[in-house]
């Protein structure tokens, strides 16, 4: 069919207009074919937010910022267009925050738990969350001096390091590194070669440990019994010791008495008269025996042999 000029123009213009409207709504993040939900929230400030900034729920993009108005109380009222089937409970919180260091700001809605849901155009609570970069920015001046000091010192250190690392040192360092690398390689080789033995050793070690464990478990009652016996013995020894002690003290007493010359033994020990008596007795006995030897008849005069035998 040959199209007339009018039809061609009509088609072109119509298509362009449709595409323009659809594209415009698409770019503005307005759902292309249906009405979307609108809610608003008031924040202390709105740094980094502009028309078209994104709105997230649980990390899912659900809409975009639609209008930003400064309220008479110098707070900022932000209206958002939300396009999701999930209803937003009353008591939800809109948090103006930044998702990453370099990403722009966006609004994150934290869902509440209420049974009632936010209606079209309703307002929810808004919280302006300071991001890391802002905090850094505020602290920046304080940190500045520290940072520059640190950098100066780092510089000095690096310079010194550079001086220390003259060519010789560098070569030595290089050689050392090479050696280390060779050594490491060898160790690796050795380890690789001995892998099986190491495995076996570890295995037998672990087996030994487990056997030891069983052994300990098995002999435990006996050991305990042994310990109890030993303890009993020790207790008995203690009583023996006490008795010995009292015996010793008694003995001491006796010795003391002996020392003092009390009692028979004491007198025996301490009184020299008995010794003297015995001594004189011995002398006299000696004399007697001598007398008998010299003159037996004197003593045996009145004794007849018959009488004796």
């Amino acid at each position: 069919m040959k199209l007339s000029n009018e039809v061609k123009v009509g088609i072109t213009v119509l298509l362009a207009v449709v595409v323009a409207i659809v594209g415009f709504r698409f770019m503005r993040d307005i759902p292309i074919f249906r009405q979307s939900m609108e809610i608003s929230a008031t924040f202390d400030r709105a740094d980094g937010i502009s028309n078209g900034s994104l709105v997230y729920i649980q990390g899912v993009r659900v809409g975009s910022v639609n209008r930003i108005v400064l309220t008479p109380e110098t707070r900022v009222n932000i209206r958002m267009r939300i396009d999701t089937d999930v209803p937003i409970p009353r008591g939800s919180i809109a948090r103006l925050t930044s998702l990453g260091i370099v990403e722009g700001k966006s609004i994150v809605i934290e869902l509440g738990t209420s049974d009632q849901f936010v209606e079209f155009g309703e307002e929810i609570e808004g919280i302006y969350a300071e991001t890391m970069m802002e905090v850094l920015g505020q602290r920046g001046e304080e940190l500045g001096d520290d940072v520059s000091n640190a950098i100066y010192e780092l510089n000095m250190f690096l310079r010194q390091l550079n001086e220390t690392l003259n060519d010789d040192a560098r070569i030595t360092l290089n050689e050392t590194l090479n050696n280390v690398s060779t050594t490491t390689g060898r160790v690796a080789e050795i380890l690789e070669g001995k892998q099986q033995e190491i495995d076996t050793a570890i295995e037998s070690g672990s087996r030994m440990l487990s056997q030891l464990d069983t052994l300990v478990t098995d002999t435990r009652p006996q050991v305990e019994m042994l310990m109890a016996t030993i303890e009993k013995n020790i207790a008995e020894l203690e009583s023996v010791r006490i008795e010995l002690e009292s015996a010793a003290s008694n003995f001491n007493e006796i010795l003391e008495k002996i020392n003092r010359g009390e009692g028979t033994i004491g007198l025996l020990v301490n009184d020299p008269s008995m010794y003297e008596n015995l001594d004189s007795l011995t002398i006299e006995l000696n004399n007697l025996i001598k007398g008998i030897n010299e003159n037996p008849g004197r003593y045996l005069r009145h004794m007849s042999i018959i009488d004796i035998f």
Partner: protein
Amino acid sequence: MYALKELGKYTTLLYQALRSSTEFGTYRKNLFHELVKVGYDSVPIIILVGIFTGSVMTLQSAYQLEFAFIPLSTIGAIVSESILIELAAVISGLVLAGKVGARVATELGTMRVSEQIDALESMGFNSVSFLVVPRVLAGILMFPVLYIVASVFGIGGGVAAGYFSGSVPPADFLKGARMFFYPWNVVFGFLKSFVFGFIITTVACYKGYYAKGGAEGVGRATTEATVMGCIYILLADFILAALLL
């Protein structure tokens, strides 16, 4: 002095065109013919221009920002905003200065040197109304349409280039494009294309309408229409940016 004379002749022609634009019956048939020639027939080349502009912009932005510490969505923002605010209007304007401007200037110049315009006049036709008005109107009406085509295919080409080269995922591209989308930029681009359509067609009509000197004169008129059209487009682009942004 020459420039002032030219300006005067140009303004006079515009005035005549404006005055005779009420004679709708005279140029109705020609208008639709011209709308097809300027708009409908230019759609393929504009689609081509749009796709290549967008994809080249994307690839080069991705290349330039490869090592910078910025999110990928920035590339989408850069490309789509550049296309909407500047490239869709200006590049298609330059292309159409060649395509439409040359054709208009040649048509009118040939009619002038072959005395067809004089014949029209002697038959009692208003030649300005019959020849100039439909062409200028077609330019004014169709350039914004072509701007839409160029924008859509430019951004589409950008998305496609980012996707196929693997440098920018479409989701990131569109996220950036949406985040930095300001309706005023579209209005501005629209306005630009409107102005460019006016400039290209009026300059071409003027050069062709006042061509003289046979085939050589027609050739000169065509060259001047194209070159001056391009220069005035760039000039107008600058003036609009300085005035409205």
